[in-house]
């Protein structure tokens, strides 16, 4: 890294917000560096949430949440194409269980109209026609057809990949610890001793966004992290629940949702408890509560198909809206914080918007070579048997299935390693293309994936990490010492 180079923009944080800003910035003639403290992008909230692209009926009209959510939802179909993501507009149903809920649904309908979101109230009978496995106790539901699902980690990674395809730089394991103003530019110092200069800095540090702002000035908001725990069920039946199912929001929160993921698994959660910034543990009582609530919505939800539990930390803030602003005191600092739900749905719209703020600030020209599309991922399910057979002839590794639960070939794994923002850990491969995500949770394929990683990255087996630096899976070999 050239330490004398002055970047136009340094983005702090490789979550979906940071990577979206990076991606949209690359439409302009600009030098961008993204600094991420973890060993991969999307390691915090962006990698552990519901994966829902909300329709936008819920946020209060006139707020940034409403604006960016509705916009983000509208942008998503095309962005998904460009970024080769599976975006499924399965629609959401918000259920009513009481007369009070009925009233809430009417209010929500009004809100939806104000936000410009298409919704429809359904009677009990209409709901059962489309979702026969829901509780018989429901009164009705609000259908929002534009709501969809996307892999949140996939979105984050592919945004970064596209940004890098267009020239953005990414440094992992670079935790920002200090920011200093030096005449015309900012100097950003990292915990590992490195520092970088830039004309503008974007604070997209998620649950630590207020702490990053505090490195320069008095924070304009404070993050109050909330933890959400989830169950993941196996893909046992694609028709069991077809929509994203929400409960009626109450003062306490949005309640538990049940939704398919783009891979056909079912996600059940989240809880909503205050927590420490990096507390991603799960606990038995919370999970038990989620289960109870979910069974009220869907009495036959087969929890015996559970394959995993996880939790993520939402960067809620004390401001009742997203914080998206240029610092008043500190020229060139942009704060993009408190992006809790509907953050995923809003991310691309926020990226678009913030990139334009920076363009105007720095009077950036257009990047005439900008390519919004990433190289397509190839899989059997996408291209069909005949084309896949031709591919195997050219590259036999596509004929070697490594993950039998999720049907992922060696060729796909190798491809995921050699892309921009490519996988270099077991978890990185898992989150990009799914080996280890299935019912066996990697019991069968982890050892294979580890060997492929070592071979492709030209590293000894013991240097392959599960996730963060230092999480090496294997110890050094101790056999045959005498002969070596």
């Amino acid at each position, binding site marked *: 890294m050239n330490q004398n180079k002055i970047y136009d923009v340094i983005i702090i944080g490789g979550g979906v917000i940071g990577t979206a800003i990076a991606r949209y910035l690359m439409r302009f003639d600009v030098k961008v560096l993204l600094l991420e403290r973890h060993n991969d992008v999307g390691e915090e909230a962006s990698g552990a949430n519901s994966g829902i692209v909300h329709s936008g009926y819920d946020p209060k009209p006139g707020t940034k949440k409403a604006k960016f959510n509705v916009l983000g939802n509208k942008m998503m179909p095309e962005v998904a194409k460009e970024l080769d993501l599976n975006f499924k507009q399965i629609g959401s149903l918000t259920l009513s269980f009481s007369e009070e809920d009925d009233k809430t649904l009417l209010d929500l309908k009004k809100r939806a109209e104000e936000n410009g979101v298409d919704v429809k109230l359904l009677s009990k009978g209409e709901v059962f026609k489309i979702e026969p496995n829901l509780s018989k106790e429901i009164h009705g539901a609000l259908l929002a057809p534009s709501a969809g699902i996307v892999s949140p980690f996939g979105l984050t990674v592919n945004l970064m990949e596209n940004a890098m395809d267009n020239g953005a730089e990414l440094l992992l394991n670079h935790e920002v610890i200090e920011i200093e103003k030096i005449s015309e530019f900012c100097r950003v110092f990292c915990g590992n001793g490195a520092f970088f200069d830039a004309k503008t800095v974007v604070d997209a540090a998620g649950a630590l966004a207020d702490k990053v702002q505090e490195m320069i000035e008095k924070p304009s908001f404070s993050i109050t992290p909330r933890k959400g725990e989830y169950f993941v069920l196996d893909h046992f039946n694609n028709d069991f629940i077809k929509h994203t199912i929400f409960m009626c929001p109450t003062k306490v929160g949005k309640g538990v949702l049940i939704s398919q993921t783009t891979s056909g698994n079912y996600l059940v959660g989240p809880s909503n408890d205050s927590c420490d910034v990096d507390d991603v543990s799960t606990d038995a009582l919370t999970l038990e509560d989620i289960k109870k609530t979910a069974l009220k919505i869907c009495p036959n939800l087969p929890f015996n198909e559970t394959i995993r539990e996880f939790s993520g930390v939402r960067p809620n803030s004390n401001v009742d809206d997203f914080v998206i602003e240029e610092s008043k005191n500190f020229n060139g600092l942009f704060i993009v914080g408190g992006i809790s739900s509907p953050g995923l749905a809003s991310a691309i719209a926020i990226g678009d918007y913030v990139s334009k703020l920076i363009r105007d600030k720095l009077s950036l020209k257009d990047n005439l070579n900008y390519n919004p599309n990433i190289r397509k991922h190839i899989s059997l399910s996408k291209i069909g048997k005949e084309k896949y057979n031709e591919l195997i002839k050219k590259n036999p590794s596509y004929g070697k299935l490594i993950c039998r639960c999720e049907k992922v070939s060696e060729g796909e794994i190798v491809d995921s390693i050699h892309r921009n923002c490519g996988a270099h850990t077991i978890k990185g491969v898992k989150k990009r293309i799914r080996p280890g995500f299935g019912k066996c949770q990697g019991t069968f394929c982890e050892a294979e994936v580890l*060997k492929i990683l070592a071979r492709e990255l030209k590293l000894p*087996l013991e240097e392959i990490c599960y996730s963060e630096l230092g999480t090496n899976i294997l110890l050094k*070999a*101790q*056999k*045959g*010492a*005498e*002969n*070596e």
Partner: protein
Amino acid sequence: MSKKKLICIVCPNGCEIEIDGDKISGYTCKRGLDYAKSEFLNPVRSLSSTVKIADSDLVCPVKTSKPIPKGKMFEVIKEINKVSIKKPIKYHQIIIKNVLNLGVDIIATKEF
């Protein structure tokens, strides 16, 4: 010799066998008695491990050709860990002859 107890593992019955000096009691069959005698007088174990295959990331499984004294297991493993062998490896090929002079060989249990 003081009193010692052990659970017989010859069959699922799991008799509790006791030895007090020369007297062995609690067994219910001859196999149980034989097991107890060998466990008290000279306990032996079959040992298996792996050896490095030269120029490969894999290891070759090996075992002792006969049970070895229980107390010698770690020493034998040390010997096994020193070795590195070249392919081809034949099934039941001797990898270490007469390991630690125990009169037992280390043999490959798989071919490569």
